């Protein structure tokens, strides 16, 4: 295998309020901690809540020329509209991770790796629905370790305001649970 320069282009998409933008920011921070070039570009509608939101995150070993990307190595989607919109934007051999809890029409492509994670259900089991985004972020790391888990945990410490630092252990648990779920899912697929 030839060693390629790391240049990972990821879109995170879902409803406003699901923590889409913050999970992208946590990943960008983790990339920065690992001395990568990073870029985080938010995009959302004018609605105060309930609209769709997404962010593009680029983690690269090279200086990033354009934050504007139209196809992605990986898509992480948390609702049906985003799945409908971004399934086709994943590059061939890329990865699509989605929260399967609220999806009626699952993805159908066969030239990409599809990873359904019942993240919302899992978050309820962990007694905090808002931890869902960290479960999904963990799943991403489980499938494709763009950055080390330790960097993500350090990033959380930076992104979360200090008054919320009591939530750090729960977030870490959610990330680790996400990794487990993703790896269990891949194991099933391999069988």
């Amino acid at each position: 295998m030839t060693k390629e320069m790391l240049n990972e282009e990821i879109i995170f998409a879902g409803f406003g309020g699901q923590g889409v933008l913050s999970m992208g920011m946590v990943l960008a921070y983790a990339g920065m901690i690992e001395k990568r070039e990073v870029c985080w570009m938010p995009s959302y509608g004018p609605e105060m809540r309930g609209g769709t939101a997404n962010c593009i995150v680029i983690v690269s070993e090279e200086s990033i020329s354009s934050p504007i990307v139209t196809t992605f190595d990986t898509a992480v989607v948390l609702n049906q509209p985003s799945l409908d919109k971004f399934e086709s934007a994943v590059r061939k051999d890329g990865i699509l991770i989605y929260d399967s809890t609220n999806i009626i029409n699952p993805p159908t492509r066969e030239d990409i790796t599809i990873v359904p994670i019942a993240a919302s259900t899992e978050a309820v089991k962990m007694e905090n629905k808002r931890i869902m985004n960290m479960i999904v972020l963990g799943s991403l790391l489980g499938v494709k370790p763009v950055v080390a888990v330790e960097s993500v945990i350090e990033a959380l410490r930076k992104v979360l305001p200090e008054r919320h630092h009591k939530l750090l252990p729960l977030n870490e648990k959610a990330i680790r649970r996400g990794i487990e779920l993703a790896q269990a899912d891949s194991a099933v697929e391999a069988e």
Partner: protein
Amino acid sequence: MTDFLSNVRIRSGNQMVAEGALRAGCKFFAGYPITPASGIYKTMIDMLPGKGGVALSAPDEISALAYCVGASLRGQKAMTATSGPGWALMTETVQYALMTETPVVIAMVQRLGPSTGGATQNAQGDVLLVENCTSGGYTIPVFTPSNPVECYELTHLAFTWSELLRTPVVVMLDKEVGMTSEDVDYMRIHDLTTLSRQRIAQSGNGSNGNVDTYYFEHPEDVPSFVPVGGKIKTTVTGSAHNKAGRLQKNSPETLEVLYHLQKKIDANANQMELVKRDVEDGARTLIVSYGITARTAREAVRRIRKNAEKVSWLNVLSLFPVPENKLRNSLHGIERIVIPEENFGGQYRSVIETLFDDQDIVGVNKIGSMITPDEIIAEVV
């Protein structure tokens, strides 16, 4: 790792505009929140009071800029931030600042218009609206950063020129430049020298021992500043006036003042020219870009050269006055100039077209979604 992290942070363009303003010695900010410029407002409200300044939440954009002009007339460096709809309300006061020779910096983060338009959509449709906002067609200096570090440096530079020329200066971003966050290595930001307006220490340049507020010897000179409300009496007016600041119709001296408002900018236009130039010998196409499309253009250039083809590129950082010399010096062997802009008419292209006859000048234009590198590449020969 700790050392590295103390120098490198993730910052948005908006945050870096605010930090650049603080670095330039901005002591007053008034604003009215508006997407996509609110990041500047928030950062200034968070940080400025801790630096000994005043940050105000104004009742609307008209008041916001008027407050800034007032603060500047008292001698403080001042800035506001807005987007297209807010700019529409500010144009009267932009002209007042220009006429009264009041330094002020306006950070203008474009979104999709017209009217309230698309608050969260990118656009570069306010280029001519900003530049041509004055009755009389005076040059408003406009700087256009394309990444967070440039946001910092060009905001600092906007303060410098605003102070030195005593005129309003605009830092113009677009939504993507303002709201995209990237890693910023503070050690790599250039050393910046902060300059301030020339002040009059004591009375005496005018008649009766008073100060002539707008006194200059040559029309391109910039009058020295006297704060309003200080020990020296000074008169400030937005109406046509002589050098003493007294209302006059079209006396020769009043007309001289009106010419002077433009001549002081023209005389410094060469020095204000700022571009990032990436010229390749043998290239026949030059891409000219600014703001977020400079980032797309950079990617287009990278891909073209990866294919062993030649192309030259100019990232314009000082949009106005038009950096004519630097453009002209990049045209050796160039047959075609491609100008990508996220507006449908090709606003900056319409300005460039009037300057050069020997090249085909074409645009790549689009609204509502971002121009892609491939769309630029398709126009390059």
